[in-house]
């Protein structure tokens, strides 16, 4: 099963033991995000609301694509892919 690297914003490093990057094992983007939430409950609570919806101002990028804009997350992944969690607030 491929491993995908996940980059986190600095405020969320403490949710995964202080690391800026983590790696999860999954076949698809959807599985990777689910695995992320399952393995790291503190990260889950910071990224998702209690009903499982993604927090309004949190974005998860699959490579250069905003996953919020992708119609289907059952995208096969490779070891070269990455997920990036970012805070979506921009500007002043």
């Amino acid at each position: 099963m491929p491993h995908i690297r996940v980059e986190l914003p600095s405020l969320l490093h403490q949710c995964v033991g202080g690391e800026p990057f983590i790696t999860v094992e999954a076949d698809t983007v959807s599985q990777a995000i689910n695995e992320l939430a399952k393995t790291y409950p503190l990260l889950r609570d910071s990224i998702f609301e209690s009903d499982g919806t993604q927090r309004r101002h949190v974005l998860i990028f699959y490579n250069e694509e905003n996953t919020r804009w992708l119609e289907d997350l059952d995208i096969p992944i490779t070891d070269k892919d990455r997920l990036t969690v970012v805070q979506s607030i921009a500007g002043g």
Partner: protein
Amino acid sequence: MGEVYVCVGTQKGGFLLRSDEGRKEWSVEGPLLGGWGIRDLSLDTRGARPVMWAAVGHEVYGPSVQRSTDLGKTWDQIEHGPKYGADAPGKLESVWTIVPGRAEEAGVLYAGVAEAGLFVSRDGGDHWNELKGLSGHPTRSAWTPGFGGLCCHTIVLDPENSKRMWVAISAAGVFRSDDGGETWSDRNEGLQNLLEAQVEEDAGFCVHRMVVDPKNPDRLFQQFHFGVYKSENAGDSWERIENGLPRGNEGCFGFPIVMHPRDPNTLFVIPQISGEYRYAHDGDLAVFKTTDAGANWSTRTDGLPGGAFQGALRQAMSVDPLNPCGVYFGTTGGLLYASRDEGETWMELPGRYPRVQSVNAYVLEG
């Protein structure tokens, strides 16, 4: 000889100021949990060593409870922190305050949250449970958020009666439990309702902060949206106590109210113009003090600045237990002030901070 600790929660992290009992020279540590919105930064001093608690509400990443056993150097985010169940009437947006239980209640802590509710931990903060009698109160449908959200911001424990406690919710009102938090009754008679349409629901009372007289727990004081009030019957009814306080177009508007650690007739408030302006009258920061349980108030400005169009938030004022007691407050403009003589004169503490959301003072023995 003790060391004075002032824990400061700001919109972008916490700070810890330390001094000896002279309270003239201060050191500053922080930011602690930099970047996080700290609604309340407090110490639980009941155990062999102090435990620091941070009540967190972040605009992006949501609420959390964080614990430090080394005075803020390292933090442990609580995995099983406050969480509403699927049947809860509200959504958990922020943790507003964390209050240790009574001295004899080892391991008990309370957390007030927005949207309004109360949680309790009985294992030192590892696990938290909702006290559903409050969030499911019969008036819940009529609760409406204040400017700071629908928040349970104040938790007051009766020091003599282990079954009795009060909470304050903006903008719902004062609620009292006489059975350890299982059931709650609204206690707002005499207060001015914020929204006329809600009079019949006995909700819509915008209490800003509340304290109890530890020597006579039937006596409570509160800074309300429209003024300062006192209750002599455990909150059953309230009366205005504003002689000497400045009044704007909404009465004596303000947020914090604190009580002297040994003299319950001495209290401090920081009036602001109104809910529209939310800064000191004429920009002159002023603390008002009463020494007769609110019968009369008078201003203290020595050492406080003019031209400071700032206010102080509800949790941003505290006292220390020394003699004479220290009084501390932080402003919406990120300034901290301290008095070493029971509010008579003031000095600015070092540092310029983000918006100050909480101030809690302690003395720890060295």
